[in-house]
């Protein structure tokens, strides 16, 4: 399997329900005291694009092996897109959406 560079999104009970309805409940990983994470996979090209678009983010190769320090609004949007599209295979759409609309993207509804 090709190496992935995931983005971890925290899932509490409220979000868990929505994800279950989207059929993504089975993809969650138990992380800490009832909190789960949704692991959104990125390939190398997607990772590089994410790090370029969001300079505050870092790929933590040492401990978590995931893309960290993305702002809340980015992760909220990723979560929203996963629920709407009912798939985790939406990084290309996400990256293209932000690249096209810029900051207006955060206020756009996912159709």
């Amino acid at each position: 399997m090709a190496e992935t560079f995931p983005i971890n999104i925290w899932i509490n009970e409220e979000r868990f329900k929505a994800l279950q309805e989207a059929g993504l409940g089975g993809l969650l990983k138990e992380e800490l005291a009832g909190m789960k994470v949704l692991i959104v996979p990125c390939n190398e090209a997607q990772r590089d694009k994410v790090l370029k678009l969001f300079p505050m983010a870092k790929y933590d190769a040492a401990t978590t092996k995931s893309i960290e320090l993305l702002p809340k609004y980015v992760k909220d949007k990723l979560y929203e897109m996963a629920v709407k599209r009912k798939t985790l295979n939406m990084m290309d759409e996400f990256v293209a959406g932000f690249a096209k609309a810029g900051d207006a993207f955060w206020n756009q509804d996912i159709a």
Partner: protein
Amino acid sequence: MELIGHGGKPLVERVITDKAEAKNKIKGLKAIPASRQMATESIGIALGFFSPLQGFMKRADVDAVVQKMELADGTLWSIPIVYDISDKEIHDYGIKAGMSVLLTRNGNPMAIFEIEEIFTYPKEEIAFKVYGTKEEKHPGVARTYAYKDKFLGGKITLVQSPKVREPYTPYFLTPRQHREKFKNLHWQRIVAHQTRNVPHSGHEWLMKHAFIAAHGELPVESMEVMGKAISGVLVNCIVGEKRAGDYIDEAIVLSQDGLKKYGYFREDIHMTTMTFWDMRYAGPKEAVHHSIIRANLGLTHHMFGRDHAGVGTYYDSYEAHRLLMSIPKEKLFITPIFVLEWAYCPHCGEVTCIGLCGHWNELQKFSGTKIRSILMDEVKPTRMIFRPEVFDIVMDAAKKYGFGSPFVTPEYLAEAAPAFSFEPL
């Protein structure tokens, strides 16, 4: 009433509270601006947090601390408290041993400094003996190397009490005031929880663990009744120099107090206060220093967890425990309580001590990275991680004091108002 502090010596209190007297005493003194660091330490000295120190250390004390972890008179001491100054400043201000000067902060009078000695001490020697390394990437070592070339030793007397800003005002108590509070609460045993963190439930359990251990063989009967506790937990937050990525001090102090405010600890067994101190991350030596400060606050016990006050990989996880255990009882004026980490066990379905439950491979630890990531995402965590009210307090503090973040950002470093200040006399 004379109070006894660390070393079995009288608690130091060197503050002139009468304005007229202060004005009179500073008349004619040369004014020298003090850095934030030196002002922080002047407060620590004059209010007695660093008892029995009455001033900045002279060479004999620095040497004894560095070489033997004690003051020149044999009192246990682990970190040099020094006033650094450049040759140019000594020349420009005409500083000589034997003269008194007025230290100022932002142009306002702060303290009288009776300079008794001007001296040098090799910085590398301080670094290696205190921090165990000469590497500049250790923040305590970096601070040592950044000292100017000379040190001034001598007594410090504040000419006014520091003004502490909101939201810290109710949390800043002098050692004397701490002791008055403890007396009113009838606490016989008080255990310190040293912190630079907002409390997740792992921390909450560390405090409970330490409370139970410190209370020990004392009776519990009276404790059934609210208001009748005879032991307490003091959360003493270290407020001082910050590094990007630390929790902001406002969030720490307010969220720790939130545990009591929302009943997770009873009102009569829990208290949150703060001490001005710039962390040196000296690990074991810092643990000794913390025990000295807390003995001066009037505490009987001090909790020490894993990796106490360390940084990077400079110290073993339990090195602080080992150093404290090696110090004879009569030199350490507080009883250490050693605690193991608490973690969430999905098998037990609760937060438990890693030394108690047998589901070793299932434990989910409260890693700093995970907690930080939860807070950054602002996804309300389960109450097994954060008490909901505590989480809300942290988020409110982020908005009110942290420019939107519960963590120190460059903006916070540049713009947050200093925690203390001095006014014109």
